[in-house]
């Protein structure tokens, strides 16, 4: 039987015994949870005890593609790394694009499951159906680009590599996984779990193809998306990439400045996407594309300034927000250097930048003595920031403490009020006080503070009004400062983004204006399944979101974790267009729970579980 969309095969890798086996994909689970984020959540939920320690061999790491990965669907190029997070203690699912992801499909696998723990550093080479374990002792300690080049040299010129850097080896709690020379499955410490298993890298070479159920319908769906994307916004995003939104975020007064003490940065003009694209980009206003991407927002930057010299992918918007504005260096050279270090060492730029800004505030407040850090680290201290990034990756001195994440660092000093994040995961680069929907999203996302798992900022900040989320409500604009409309919008956008991250496509295609019906058309044409219209499509998203939350409940997280730092809840923003606002979480959370079909304790009700087909899983 020819499979459409899915390859219908799962590669299971036992790292303890260095053996592997291939099994059929659970077809029923695939139809209910699609792939990527959703199917990964389902397999993880079924296969591990969510209460297990993230670093124990009983935890598993799943690399999961979606049915659109490897197809010509716009930006159908992603895989999701799913595991239990060592940072949040809840579910982790970090996604990245690249030829590594598409080659997993071409090699014939929807998913690779890593179990157990190797006795020594290894990497796995998947050459279609030939699976081999290789000794990685010689790679241990190497940076991500060194590792990738060495693995390609040792396997095949067209092998694609996903790996961890020294930060993952040293169990930095926010270590990431890097593939394709700088693409990051960034958040929640997925790289540290790989490190705990002594799994340095995965190389894959796939020579097969991906077929879809209805060729003509699939082509028409692609053309429909292309027509939507043919506009100046896509061109701007191509030329300036994610940093192209910096000016708008400044304008709304939600740019984290000095560890979220302020929402505007008087030096914001030194931190714009246009400036980056015109100065440090290797080619001016030229983006590079991940597989099948019509936007091509990636870029390579080169810094010649000897203090911060280097070359590599990025920095992206969030990285500039954290290292540039929150750390208050206001210097793209320094930001780029910190970004290069994070990518090469394999750690999340958001958590690293946020944690360093947090350290700066505590240093200025006299909570952290200079002797602890080893040098003065006030806001704006660019060289110190870069130095501390290196120290985190090496777990050297104060870096060893910050490698535990900003929350645990503030806890060490008995001052968790300086921690800016949720569920022990650091905030990305938006201040929720000026974006009420973002505040609610931060509080309720299963993976903790996160900007991409329910992008309400697309509606109120970026003016995206083409989705059914707003069209079906007859909304012509969304006010970032109002809270009344946010519970309903949050539920729908979170469910919608669960679908995006489960299909194997990049969310930027939808950020740029494509909508739910186009996604459903691609998915149905590719797989041949009937999603049951828009309602069934969104119900699938909701099922996925709820399963993630069920995982977290069994892992020990409760509704008490659906909260925000005191600063967000009690201290009004002192400046900018959102001056005077706090996050109205107390008002938004009860209606949000109700719309979710949860009780007051944030637990799924039996009725809602039945509606979503989750009854069997809630009674485990």
């Amino acid at each position, binding site marked *: 039987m020819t499979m459409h969309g899915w390859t219908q095969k799962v590669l299971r890798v036992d790292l303890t015994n260095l053996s592997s086996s291939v099994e059929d994909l659970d077809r029923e689970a695939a139809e209910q949870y699609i792939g990527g984020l959703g199917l990964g959540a389902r397999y993880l939920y079924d296969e591990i005890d969510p209460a297990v320690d993230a670093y124990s061999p009983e935890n598993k790491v799943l690399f999961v593609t979606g049915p659109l990965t490897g197809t*010509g669907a716009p930006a159908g190029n992603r895989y999701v790394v799913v595991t239990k997070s060592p940072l949040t203690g809840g579910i982790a699912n970090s996604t990245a694009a690249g030829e590594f992801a598409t080659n997993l499909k071409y090699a014939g696998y929807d998913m690779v499951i890593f179990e157990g723990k190797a006795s020594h550093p290894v990497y796995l080479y998947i050459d279609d159906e030939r699976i081999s374990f290789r000794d990685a002792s010689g790679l241990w300690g190497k940076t991500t680009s060194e590792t990738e080049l060495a693995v390609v040299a040792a396997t095949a010129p067209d092998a694609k590599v996903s790996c961890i850097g020294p930060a993952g080896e040293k169990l930095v709690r926010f270590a990431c996984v890097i593939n394709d020379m700088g693409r990051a499955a960034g958040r929640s410490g997925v790289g540290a779990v790989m490190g705990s298993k002594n799994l340095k890298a995965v190389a894959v070479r796939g*020579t097969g*193809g991906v*077929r879809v159920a209805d*060729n003509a319908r699939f082509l028409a769906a692609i053309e429909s998306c292309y027509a939507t994307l043919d506009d100046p916004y896509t061109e701007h995003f*191509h030329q300036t990439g994610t940093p192209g939104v910096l000016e708008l975020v400044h304008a709304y007064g939600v740019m984290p400045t000095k560890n979220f003490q302020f929402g505007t940065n008087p030096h914001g003009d030194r931190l714009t996407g246009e400036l980056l694209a015109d100065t440090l980009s290797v080619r001016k206003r030229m983006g590079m*594309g991940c597989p099948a*991407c019509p936007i091509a927002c990636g870029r390579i930057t080169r810094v010649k300034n000897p203090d911060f010299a280097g*070359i590599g992918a990025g920095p992206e918007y969030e990285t500039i927000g954290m290292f540039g504005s929150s750390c208050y260096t206001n210097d793209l050279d320094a930001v780029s250097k910190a970004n290069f270090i994070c990518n090469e060492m394999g750690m999340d730029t958001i958590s690293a930048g946020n944690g360093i800004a947090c350290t700066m505030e505590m240093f200025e407040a006299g909570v952290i003595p200079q002797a602890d850090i080893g040098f003065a680290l006030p806001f704006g201290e660019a060289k110190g920031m870069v130095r501390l990034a290196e120290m985190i990756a090496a777990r050297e001195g104060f870096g060893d403490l910050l490698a535990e994440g900003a929350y645990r660092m503030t806890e060490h000093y008995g001052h968790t009020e300086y921690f800016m994040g949720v569920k022990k995961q650091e905030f990305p680069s938006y201040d929720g006080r000026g974006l009420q929907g973002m505040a609610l999203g931060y509080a309720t996302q299963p993976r903790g503070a996160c900007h991409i798992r329910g992008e309400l900022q697309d509606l109120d900040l970026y003016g995206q009004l083409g989705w059914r989320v707003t069209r079906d409500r007859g909304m012509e604009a969304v006010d970032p400062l109002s809270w009344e409309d946010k519970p309903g919008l949050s539920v729908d956008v979170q469910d919608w983004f669960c679908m995006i991250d489960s299909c194997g496509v990049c969310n930027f295609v939808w950020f740029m204006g494509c909508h739910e019906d186009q996604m459903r058309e691609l998915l149905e044409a590719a797989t041949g399944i009937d999603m049951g219209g828009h309602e069934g499509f969104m119900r699938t998203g909701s099922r996925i979101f709820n399963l993630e939350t069920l995982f977290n409940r069994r892992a020990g997280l409760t509704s008490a974790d659906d909260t925000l730092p005191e600063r967000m809840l009690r201290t009004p923003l002192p400046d900018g267009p959102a001056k005077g606002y706090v996050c109205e979480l107390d008002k938004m959370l009860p209606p949000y729970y109700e719309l979710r079909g949860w009780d007051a304790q944030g637990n799924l009700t039996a009725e809602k579980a039945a509606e979503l087909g989750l009854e069997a899983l809630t009674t485990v």
Partner: protein
Amino acid sequence: MTQMIVIDIGKCTGCGTCELMCSFRHHGEFNPRKARIHKTVFLYDELAVPVVCSQCEDAWCERICPAGAIAHTIEPTSGAAVLKVDEQICVGCRMCMLACPFGNIAVGAKGHAEKCDLCDGDPQCVKFCPRGALHFADSERGEGEKRRKLATALAASYKESE
């Protein structure tokens, strides 16, 4: 003057959509390795270059083919010259692969030579190239644009200082 696939190197982002759409058209699957157009990415230069058969006037593949399976034809809708492989005649001897200096013809899994056939006058790589790096245009377009770019650069170098 004939139509050909004209490549604007500076615009290619390396996304490989051309490869995917080519394989989808010719093999019914998305598989870059079965494509007849291939991109190479030079990441740290932020450059990518697609390479595809340029339908040589006096083609090595055509001349070497012992079975006479490769022949020049005129694509009726566009009037473009195209070198086509007759799959019934081709024996898969791979002489064309050896002869082509550019790597633009290969014997595939079905046992016969595969190369760009311009998709009956509607090349899918061109149609779906999302950044306008590929055009199906008069062959002189490429030259003309290169000359114009060079002239622009020369003109800039000659500007008298203000």
